[in-house]
C-alpha cells in the first residue's frame, strides 16, 4: 500500500482527508426482499406494491432467498467473510416513505463480514499506485418508498414501488485518502457487482448510490469529526463531494469553527454540500431484532452453490488477458473494466477463432485492437453504448477473419467496417459485392508500379539521389492507384525491386 499524497493546502498548513463510503446497491431480483412484489424500474407509481409493502394490518415479511443469494455472492466476490448466522433487525422511525414505520435491516448481525478490494488509481497503467480498501460489512435491507412533493400544491405523493426493494449496504473502512481513491473504489465496486450480476450498477437510475463520509485531519493525527453526504449518485459526484466537503471542513476549522457530525446533501448544480440534519435532532433510530423473522442460517450446500456460480472476476480476468492472451496492460484493463465489454470481447474472440480456424491466443491482439480502437471509436461517434452496437460479435469476427487470412489489408478492413456500420451488411457480403479483396497479383501490381514511377519522374530522381524517405510516397501512390486493394507486403517487395 502506498500512502496517498493528496493534501488540502490550508492557510495553516496541509490537511489530509479521510473517506469512507456506504454504498447502497439494489439487488438484482424479480421480487422484493420481503414480499413477492415486482421490482422493475420505471413502472407506474404504486403498481408494484404488495399488501406487505403497504404494511396492511397483519401482514408478515418472508425473506426472498434470491436476494440473500446475491448478497452472499457479492460478499464472496469481495473476499469477505460470509456469516452463516445472521439476523434481521427493525430500524424504527417515522417517515412517510416508510409504510411499516420501520425498515427491516441488519444492524447487529450482518450477512457479510469483513473483506477487501484492490483499487488502482489507473487500472490501465501497470505501474499505477494500487491500494487495498477494507470492507467492513455488507448487510441487506429494505429500500424506502419515494416521496414526490412537486405534484400538487398542498399534497405530497407517495410511490411505494421501491418500498421493500432489496438493497445491499456495502460499508467500507475509512481507508480512502483522496477523491481519486474514493472514485476508484466506487468504480471498482460497481464493476464487481456487475460481474457478479448482483446489482445492475445503474447509478443514474438509483440502483447504486453512495453515502460519503468525509473528515479531515493533520497528516498522521487522529481522525477528525466526519460528516455524511447522502445519496450521491455518480463516481464523478463522489469525487466532487470529497473535494468540496474536505475543503469546507478545512475552512471551518481554520476559521476557528468546529465540525459537527451531521448529514449533508450534495447540490451538483451549485457545487456545494448543505446541512440536512445534525446529529442532535437526528432520528432516534430504535433497533431491535425483527420478531417476525427467524435468524438466517446458511448451510454449506448453499454457500458452495453461491461460490460455484461466481464468474471470473475483473482482476483475475485482467491478469489472464495479459498472461494468456498476451494483451497489453492497457488493453486488458480496458476490456475487463466492465463485465459487458469483457463478455463482448470473449464472444468476438471465440467466434473469430472458430471462423478463422486459429487459436484465440493468436487472434487476441488484433481482436482487442479492433474492439478498442475501431469499434469503440465508431460507437463513440454514434453516441452509442456497446450493447447498442450496430455490429455484433459474430459480424466483427467475420471481419477480423478476413483480415487474418489476408483477404483484407488493414486499410481495406477499415473501409469494409465503415460500410458495415452504414449498411448493416456482413463483411463477406461487402467484400464479395464490392470486390474489396486485397490482391497479391504481382503482374498487376508491377504494372501499376511502372505507371507510378513513370508519372513521378522528379520523385524518382530524388529517391535515386539518396532521399530514401520517398519510399513511402511510392507505396502510397501505388496503393491509391489500386484503390487500397493491393497487398502492402507485396507492394513493398515489388517496389524495392523496381526502385533498385
Amino acid at each position: 500500500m502506498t500512502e496517498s499524497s493528496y493534501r488540502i493546502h490550508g492557510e495553516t498548513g496541509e490537511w489530509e482527508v479521510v473517506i469512507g463510503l456506504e454504498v447502497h446497491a439494489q439487488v438484482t431480483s424479480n421480487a422484493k426482499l420481503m414480499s413477492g412484489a415486482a421490482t422493475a424500474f420505471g413502472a407506474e407509481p404504486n403498481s408494484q406494491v404488495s399488501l406487505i409493502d403497504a404494511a396492511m394490518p397483519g401482514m408478515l415479511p418472508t425473506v426472498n432467498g434470491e436476494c440473500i443469494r446475491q448478497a452472499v455472492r457479492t460478499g464472496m466476490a469481495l473476499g469477505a467473510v460470509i456469516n452463516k448466522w445472521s439476523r434481521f433487525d427493525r430500524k424504527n422511525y417515522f417517515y412517510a416513505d416508510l409504510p411499516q414505520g420501520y425498515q427491516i435491516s441488519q444492524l447487529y448481525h450482518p450477512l457479510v463480514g469483513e473483506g477487501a478490494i484492490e483499487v488502482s488509481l489507473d487500472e490501465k497503467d501497470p505501474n499505477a499506485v494500487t491500494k487495498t480498501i477494507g470492507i467492513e460489512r455488507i448487510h441487506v435491507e429494505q429500500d424506502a418508498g419515494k416521496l414526490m412533493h412537486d405534484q400538487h400544491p398542498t399534497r405530497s405523493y407517495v410511490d411505494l414501488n421501491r418500498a421493500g426493494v432489496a438493497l445491499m449496504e456495502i460499508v467500507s473502512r475509512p481507508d480512502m485518502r483522496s477523491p481519486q481513491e474514493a472514485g476508484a473504489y466506487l468504480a471498482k465496486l460497481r464493476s464487481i457487482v456487475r460481474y457478479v450480476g448482483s446489482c445492475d450498477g445503474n447509478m443514474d437510475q438509483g440502483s447504486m448510490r453512495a453515502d460519503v463520509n468525509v473528515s479531515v485531519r493533520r497528516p498522521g493525527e487522529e481522525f477528525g469529526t466526519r460528516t455524511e453526504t447522502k445519496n450521491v449518485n455518480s463516481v464523478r459526484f463522489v469525487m466532487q463531494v470529497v473535494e468540496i466537503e474536505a475543503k469546507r471542513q478545512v475552512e471551518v476549522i481554520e476559521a476557528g469553527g468546529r465540525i459537527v457530525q451531521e448529514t449533508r446533501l450534495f447540490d451538483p448544480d451549485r457545487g456545494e454540500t448543505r446541512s440536512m440534519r445534525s446529529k442532535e435532532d437526528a432520528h432516534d433510530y430504535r433497533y431491535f431484532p425483527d420478531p417476525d423473522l427467524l435468524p438466517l442460517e446458511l448451510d454449506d450446500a448453499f454457500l458452495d452453490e453461491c461460490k460455484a456460480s461466481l464468474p471470473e472476476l475483473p482482476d483475475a480476468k485482467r491478469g489472464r488477458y495479459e498472461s494468456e492472451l498476451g494483451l497489453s496492460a492497457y488493453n486488458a484493463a480496458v476490456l475487463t473494466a466492465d463485465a459487458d465489454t469483457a463478455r463482448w470481447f470473449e464472444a468476438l474472440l471465440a467466434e473469430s477463432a472458430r471462423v478463422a480456424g486459429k487459436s484465440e491466443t493468436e487472434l487476441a491482439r488484433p481482436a482487442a485492437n479492433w474492439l478498442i480502437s475501431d469499434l469503440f471509436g465508431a460507437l463513440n461517434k454514434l453516441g452509442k453504448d456497446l450493447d447498442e452496437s450496430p455490429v455484433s460479435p459474430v459480424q466483427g469476427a467475420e471481419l477480423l477473419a478476413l483480415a487474418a487470412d489476408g483477404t483484407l489489408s488493414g486499410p481495406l478492413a477499415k473501409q469494409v467496417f465503415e460500410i458495415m456500420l452504414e449498411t448493416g451488411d456482413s463483411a463477406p457480403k461487402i467484400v464479395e459485392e464490392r470486390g474489396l479483396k486485397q490482391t497479391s497479383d504481382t503482374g498487376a501490381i508491377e504494372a501499376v508500379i511502372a505507371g507510378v514511377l513513370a508519372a513521378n519522374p522528379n520523385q524518382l530522381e530524388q529517391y535515386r539521389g539518396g532521399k530514401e524517405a520517398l519510399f513511402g510516397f511510392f507505396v502510397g501512390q501505388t496503393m491509391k492507384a489500386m484503390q487500397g486493394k493491393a497487398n502492402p507486403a507485396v507492394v513493398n517487395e515489388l517496389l524495392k525491386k523496381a526502385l533498385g
Partner: protein
Amino acid sequence: MTDLTELGVAALRDGIRTSKFSAREVADQFIVKVSKAKALNAFIVETPDHAMAAARAADEAVAKGEALKPLAGVPIGMKDLFCTKGVQTTAASHILEGFKPVYESTVSQNLWDAGAGMLGKLNMDQFAMGSSNETSYFGNVISPWRRGGGDKAPLAPGGSSGGSSAAVAARLCPGATGTDTGGSIRQPAAFVGISGIKPTYGRCSRWGTIAFASSLDQAGPMARDVKDCAILLEAMSGFDAKDSTSLNLPVPKWEEGLNSDLRGKKIGIPAEYLIDGSPPEIVQLWETGIEWLKDAGAEIVEVSLPHTKYALPAYYIIAPAEASSNLARYDGVRYGLRELAEGANLQEMYAATRAAGFGEEVKRRILIGTYVLSAGFYDAYFTQASKVRTLIARDFENAWAVCDYLLTPTAPSAAFALGDKSADPLAMYLNDVFTVPSSLAGLPAMSVPGGLDKDGLPLGLQIIGKPLDEQGVLNAGLAIEQRAGFVARPDAWW
C-alpha cells in the same frame, strides 16, 4: 324445539353430520341469541350471512351425501384481531374503525376451509392490550357472570379475548377464536368458566392477525370443554409459508388422541407460583387439582422455576417494545382514521391521528416500548429483558427433565368488577402473573375451569406443557375436567 345453543362444538358437528338437526337450525338459533345479547357487548360486528352461508353449504353436503368437512355447519365467533375479508376488522380500536381487509387471516381461512361459519367479530381489549376488556374503543364487554347474593356489579370477562370468553360462556357461540400474548386466552377463559388453549408458538399462523407482540402472539381456541378446544385447535393450526415463524410440522389428530389416563406422567408443581396474598380459594383449588391429577394416575413432583418473579417485568418490556414497533404502521396514511387539521404537516397529521386513534392503554404501551428501545436505554431494558426471557425458558427446560406438565392456577384471582383495576395499570398487569412465563417460553398452555370462589365465580387451573405437546396438555386438562365436574353457568340476565 331443542335449544341447540346448549350444545358444544363436537355435539353440533356430530348432530349435523347425523342429520339430528340441520346446520341452518343451528345457525338460526345462535344468530338469534347473539342479536339478543347486546347487553354483554361481546360482538363488535355481527355476521349472520356468513354463518348462514356455511350452514347452507353444510346442509347441502349432508343432502348430497358428501363427506363433511371437520367443522361443517358449526358457527363460531371470531376475535376482532383476525382480519376477515370484507368484514370490518378493528382490533377494537378507533384507528382501524371501518377498515375492511381485502384478505383473510390464515387462521380464519383455515376455519372456513374446515366448514365453520362466522357469527360475528368479537370485542376485545384494544390491540389485545388489557386483562379486563375495558380498553376496547367499542366499550367494555360485560361478563355474563355475576357475584352471588344479588350483586349486580358488572364483572370483567377477562382480557384481551373478553368478547370471546363472554360469548362462549353466555352460549352465544359454541366456540371462539382467541389470541394469547401473555395470557389473553387462558385468563379470560378462567374468568368465565370455559376452556382455552394457547398452543406452542408457531402452531397457528400469525399471517393476517393484527400484531401486538410478534414473538409472543399466538392464536388458539376458547370453548366449553377440552374436546371442543382440541377440535377447533386442529382446524386452526398448520404450517403457513407466509409466516416465517410458522412451524413446518403436521398437525396432530388431537381430538383422536384425547386420553385422560395420566399413569406414568409426572406433574410438576412450581413452588414460585404460590404467591403471597393469593386468595385461599386459589390455593385450595390448586391443591384439589393436584389430587385430581394424582387420581388420574399422575405422579406429583415439586419443581422450581427460579426466574418466575422476573417474568412479568420482562414481559412488560418485551411486549410493549414489539407493540410500539408493530403499531407504527397506523399513521393515518393508508387506511383507517386520519386526523388532518387545516394546514397541518405530515408529522402533525401522524400525531393527531395517533392521539385520536389509540386508547390510553395502547398509548401507554407504545410509550413504554418506545422508551425501552431508545438508544440510551436499549441495553438496560430490552437486552436485559431478552436475557431474562432466555433464563425463564431454561427454567422450563430444567423442569422438563423431571416432569411432563406443570399445574398452576390460571389467574391470581377470580373475575373482578369492571372499573376495579382500570385506574391502576400495575394491578392490572398482575393478572398475567401465572400465564406470562409460559408465553415468554412459547409453550403450550391451557386453562380449564376447576371450581367457584366464595362469590360463586369461576376459577381456572392452568396446565403448561413441553413444546409441541399440546396433546399432553389437552389430556391433563381432560383429566381435570372429568374430575372437576364443572357445570356452573351464569344465569341469563341479559
